[in-house]
């Protein structure tokens, strides 16, 4: 050990710089987040510009509504599930006649069975329970992001009282799987890269994170 005296200026200086850096960075992250929230505005342009492909559309609300919200989503993605919870909350109190909410599969994490989950949702949709299955898939990912996803899907089908034999057949149906892949590829070609990617009336928007942001977008808070 050397006999040098301690140098407090060095320590105070470094601590000061650290505090400044931390403050600046946190402030930056905060203001960036604010700007993102504020940039969400109501759009009224047409539905043009979204990829068109020949797969069944899954629409909640009124398909003929003027306002059309489209999400490209993955059952395994946390932010998608969070957005889906906001959508559910919104439809609980909002007049479902005024909005068409469409979900398009974009199973970005194939290696966690999320493509299989997309197929499972369509298989349930064939028995009229697409949205019920969608809720289960989003909020119980641990049941199917596992070694044996089939057991998870079958359990959900049983819970929804589906025809299990038919559901299992659809789960392995090449037709459904190819449709999911076709939709995914078309969206990829169109330029979708991340999930959730949300479009309102054909314009890409930042994903609404709260009920208030949904109302800011769609307009009209109902009592």
């Amino acid at each position: 050990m050397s006999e040098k005296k301690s140098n407090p200026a060095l320590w105070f200086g470094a601590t000061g710089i650290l505090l400044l850096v931390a403050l600046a960075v946190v402030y930056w992250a905060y203001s960036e987040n604010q700007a993102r929230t504020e940039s969400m505005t109501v759009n009224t342009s047409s539905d043009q510009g979204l990829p068109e492909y020949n797969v069944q559309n899954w629409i909640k609300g009124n398909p003929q509504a003027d306002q059309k919200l489209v999400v490209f989503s993955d059952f395994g993605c946390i932010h998608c599930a969070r957005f889906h919870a906001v959508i559910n909350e919104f439809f609980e109190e909002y007049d479902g006649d005024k909005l068409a909410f469409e979900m398009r599969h974009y199973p970005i994490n194939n290696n966690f069975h999320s493509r299989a989950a997309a197929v499972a949702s369509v298989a349930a949709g064939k028995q009229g329970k697409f949205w019920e299955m969608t809720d289960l898939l989003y909020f119980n990912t641990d049941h199917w992001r596992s070694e044996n996803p089939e057991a998870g899907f079958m359990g959900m089908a049983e819970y929804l009282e589906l025809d299990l034999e038919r559901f299992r057949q659809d789960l392995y149906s090449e037709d459904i799987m190819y449709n999911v892949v076709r939709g995914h590829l078309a969206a990829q070609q169109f330029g979708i890269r991340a999930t959730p990617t949300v479009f309102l009336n054909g314009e890409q928007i930042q994903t609404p994170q709260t009920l208030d942001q949904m109302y800011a977008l769609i307009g009209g808070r109902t009592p």
Partner: protein
Amino acid sequence: MNPRIYIITILVLGFIGFADATYLTATHFMDAPPGCGEEGGCGEVTSSEYSTLFGIPISLFGIMFYLSMIFMSLLWLDRKPDFVALVLPIFSAPAFLFSMWLVYLMLFVLEAICWYCMGSAASSTLIFITSFLFWKSQQ
């Protein structure tokens, strides 16, 4: 080479890494994906199941690592204790290996790249190399 240069390099890298990790931690707790352009996969990476360890965001471990590197560098600049030459590589080697694991996850498992995370991996790699060179220079 003057060993001071190694230590100052580690100090600077530590500050850069600290700023980076603080940003990632802040966005984690604000529930906002870090902004990284249209093509970026930041949200995909920082919201993946690999982004936390024991419920703690990995970037918080990053902050602690960079703070310890900064502390060790300052300690050496101040009093030049011999053990710093040993502690720096011993601390930064696991951080380097862990960073490589995270880079592997981004490239091959998530297939989404978050440049802030890559930046942190780069700075911890450089810290490891520099601390190894420093240790050699002190032999």
